[in-house]
């Protein structure tokens, strides 16, 4: 029997992933050994430090274009860019998670296992500081995402998928307020997510049956050369896509999104809306552009229909929402549709525009959820839209910032939302997918209405008794909101900064 040889690993290239995993493990130890009082500060600093360190290493790896770990990981332009994007967005999300000024003890429950509504629950809701385990859990999720966008074979991708999904299921269940809703969200996300993972895994098995390997290079070669009946390959790709489209929240795999976005603690919702999107689309890009790019004629029409459905249904259902978090959830579904348009545009332009869109949208959505965290009353966040009436009078600054964010979502120029829409539409027309652009335009019109409705609520309606006050944000939320809004403006006014970066990074290694 041959000796098993360990593959050579380019440690510098995978250092960001290792740093994040290391920080997460360290966080577990902190939880065990650091006294309770100091834990929050230590954990938060550790998480922020780990993320910043990972980011620094990613920046130093900017020019790496290599596969490593026996071809299991590809550290190339898109991988490095998306890792950087995930880390930056995660940094902002961690700030939101670390906010403890808005609510005594933070947005997370102290002990999730206590029965909702029991005496112990009432006591803990009033006093106890929130769980500090959220930081290591979030770090595991971030590390999994970093791995996900760099995975160069389907098995690594599946492992990464699970590594970042399981912590997310858990995080969703940890809201301090409205705990039943939060637990329901987590369970829904977990069950449906497990189905999606199963689909993914089954797809991997079918593809392995056709190709005899799971790495993208072999899949690409087999798809081009094999003269066997490609049914197995198609079925495999379809199942794989279902698994990935579930994570991107594309219709018809979107049904979990509104419930989970609403139930999860808002910092986690922000984290999912920004980072999970990047990770999921990063993986989808790699699967379609590297492994299956030979089949683009076959999958583009089908995924195109999914993109159109995602845009239209997301937009139409957003119109009917009365809860701000659900509205943002449907808006995120519609945005997944626009991102799919970018993905299907194919070619370098498609890749670059999708990556730009991911970053631009991530910052904007983080800003949006930061505002949602601020608008609250005695019962926590005031989610119902009717409660936002007249907010512009009560707190013009916050309402103004949120209006700007909504205009960005609606794609009004001088915001990053416009530039990113322009980029994906331009790439799609260039790639001959004009029909997707037409659908995108129509859905944008529909989608503008719910955003406008919120603006009307805030500015044109008069405040009522029920209008909640805007809490004075702590320094973390302030920083997060500022970053979100500033980047939305900056990428709208001077998008060249990021556009150059994305087009420079828009090439996969095989």
């Amino acid at each position, binding site marked *: 029997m041959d000796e098993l040889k360990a593959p050579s690993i380019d440690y510098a290239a995978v250092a960001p992933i290792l740093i994040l995993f290391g920080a997460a493990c360290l966080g577990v130890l902190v939880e065990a050994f650091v006294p309770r009082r100091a834990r929050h500060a230590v954990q938060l600093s550790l998480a922020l430090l780990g993320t910043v360190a990972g980011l620094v290493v990613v920046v130093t790896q900017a020019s790496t274009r290599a596969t490593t770990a026996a071809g299991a990981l590809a550290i190339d332009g898109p991988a490095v860019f998306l890792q950087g994007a995930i880390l930056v967005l995660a940094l902002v999300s961690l700030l939101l998670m670390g906010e403890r000024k808005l609510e005594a003890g933070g947005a997370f429950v102290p002990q999730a296992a206590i029965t909702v509504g029991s005496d112990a629950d009432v006591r803990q809701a009033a006093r106890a500081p929130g769980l500090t385990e959220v930081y290591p859990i979030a770090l595991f999720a971030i590390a999994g995402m970093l791995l996900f966008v760099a995975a160069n074979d389907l098995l690594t991708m599946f492992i990464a998928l699970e590594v970042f999904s399981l912590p997310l299921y858990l995080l969703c269940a940890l809201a301090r307020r409205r705990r039943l809703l939060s637990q329901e969200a987590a369970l829904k996300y977990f069950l449906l997510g497990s189905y999606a993972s199963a689909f993914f895994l089954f797809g991997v098995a079918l593809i392995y049956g056709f190709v005899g390997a799971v790495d993208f290079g072999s899949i690409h070669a087999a798809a081009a050369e094999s003269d066997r009946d490609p049914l197995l390959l198609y079925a495999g790709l379809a199942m794989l896509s279902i698994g990935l489209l579930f994570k991107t929240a594309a219709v018809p795999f979107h049904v979990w999104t509104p419930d989970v976005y609403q139930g999860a603690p808002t910092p986690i919702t922000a984290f999912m809306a920004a980072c999970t999107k990047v990770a999921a689309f990063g993986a989808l890009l790699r699967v379609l552009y590297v492994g299956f790019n030979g089949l683009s004629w076959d999958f583009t029409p089908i995924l195109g229909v999914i993109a159109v459905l995602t845009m239209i249904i997301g937009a139409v259902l957003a119109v009917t929402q009365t809860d701000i978090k659900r509205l943002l959830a449907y808006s995120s579904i519609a945005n997944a549709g626009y991102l799919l348009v970018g993905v299907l545009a194919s070619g370098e332009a498609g890749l670059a525009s999708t990556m730009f869109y991911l970053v631009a949208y991530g910052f904007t959505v983080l800003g949006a959820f930061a505002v949602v965290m601020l608008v609250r009353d005695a019962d926590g966040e005031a989610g119902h839209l009717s409660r936002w009436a007249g907010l512009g009078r009560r707190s013009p600054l916050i309402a103004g910032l949120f209006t700007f964010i909504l205009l960005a979502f609606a794609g009004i120029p001088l915001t990053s939302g416009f530039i990113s829409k322009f980029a994906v539409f*331009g790439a799609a027309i*260039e790639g001959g997918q004009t029909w997707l652009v037409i659908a995108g335009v129509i859905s944008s019109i529909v989608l*503008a209405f719910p955003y406008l409705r919120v603006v009307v609520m805030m500015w044109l309606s008069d405040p009522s008794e029920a209008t909640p006050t805007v809490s004075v944000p702590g320094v973390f939320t302030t920083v997060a909101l500022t970053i979100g809004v500033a980047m939305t403006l900056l990428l709208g006014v001077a998008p*060249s900064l990021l556009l150059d970066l994305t087009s420079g990074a828009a090439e996969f290694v095989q």
Partner: protein
Amino acid sequence: MSSFPYLSVLTVAPLVGALVVAFLPRSRPELAKWLTLAWSLGILALTVALWVAFEAGGERLQLRESYPWIPGWGANFTFAVDGIALVMLMLIAVLVPIVILAAWHEADASGRSVPVYFALLLALESTMIGVFAAADVFLFYVFFEVMLVPMYFLIGSYGGAKRQYAAVKFFLYSLVGGLFMLAAVVGLWVAGGKTFDWAALTQIDMSTGTERWLFLGFFLAFAIKAPFFPFHTWLPDAGGVAPAGAGALLVGILDKVGTFGILRYCLPLFPDASRYFAPLALVLGVIGIIYAALLAVGQNDLKRLVSYTSIAHFGFIGVGIFAFTTQAGTGAVLYMVNHGLATGLLFLVVGMLVARRGSALITDFGGAGKYVPILAGVLFFAGLASLAMPGTAPFVSEFLVLVGTFTVNKPIAIIATLGIVLAAAYVLWMVQRTVQGTPNPALAEVEGMRRDITLREKVVVAPLIAMIIVFGFYPKPITDVINPAVQATMQDVGATDPAPTAITEAAK
């Protein structure tokens, strides 16, 4: 040619003013008002300097400035004006101070921030100047869309009853057109090899199908903006509830972005498609003239009535543009200016009456001339200008449009002429029911009706009346500037004039 960067300064200056005014304390409304007025007068002075720097017989696009913006996409901050854009800039610069003065007390009673109202007016001026001064399609689109935002808040925050509905309708209608135009802009960009430069884009070759689709994308946006029948339904709602100042800018200038866009973008960029779709546009124009005039006759709300007259006038402008003769084209551009003056005046006077009476319904008036004789006289004059009475400026333009159209398309010209009759009907009947006839006894009870035109209001209407009369007899300063631009545009479309010399005759 001067090297002073007129156009970029003109675009940015109002925005700077807006920011300054917006951050004034709410407790100092007077300061905000005077500062805004002074600022807009400064911009007027700068625009006059721009007019002087422009050489009427020179190149088509002058005073060009270009700064890189998004090099990867070929988008630049490129500003340049032709004669058409120049007169529109002048119109903006003249109207804004007048509107500011007219809107002096408008925000006082709204319960909302007064400085913000004036800041929004200045911000609107900035985007309006930008949209006419841009010579880069991307930049134009940016201004075209951003323009919605200040207007939305002006209508939505400071308007009358049903303002939310009207503001949202205005925004969504414009956005519908804007987003289809976005698709067309993207398509044009791809077809043109990734450039947004207007001059370069006029040179590209496109397949017939592409050209037609792109034309429709642009045309839809401009037709909604103008508005042409059947995309007009937002204007009466928006114009009806808009505060008089914002409303005057809405119908006086904002709507002209549509017709300007057709002249600057649709015709030169898609000449073949323009000729192909010209019959459609002519028919829409004529329907607009007749249909909107009939609706205007039936209105009981003064502001809505003025909005409908505006739609009818835009029908004339549309006919003038798509007749493809220099004469009709010049008439259309002249009409854009004169309409801004005449309808702007009408809107402002109506606003003054409405402010006094506290109602815009015609039935709430009746014999108002007995209480406010001078104001009634101004209303009568504005009405006459609006129906294109000979001796007022709109007459010249309407006449040019009709004559220029008649030489190439008799049926359209003849039907359009019917619009003049209807215009007389809606204006005279409105004047009769509002300020003439038996005095409405209710008016005697109204405090405001005892006060005739104030000094401030005289300052508001005097320059407009003067310009309407002067340009009614001597439109040459304007026609000299716009003629070369119109001729160049008609050349782009490949139209030949049956009687190219007639224009100078008529203009004199």
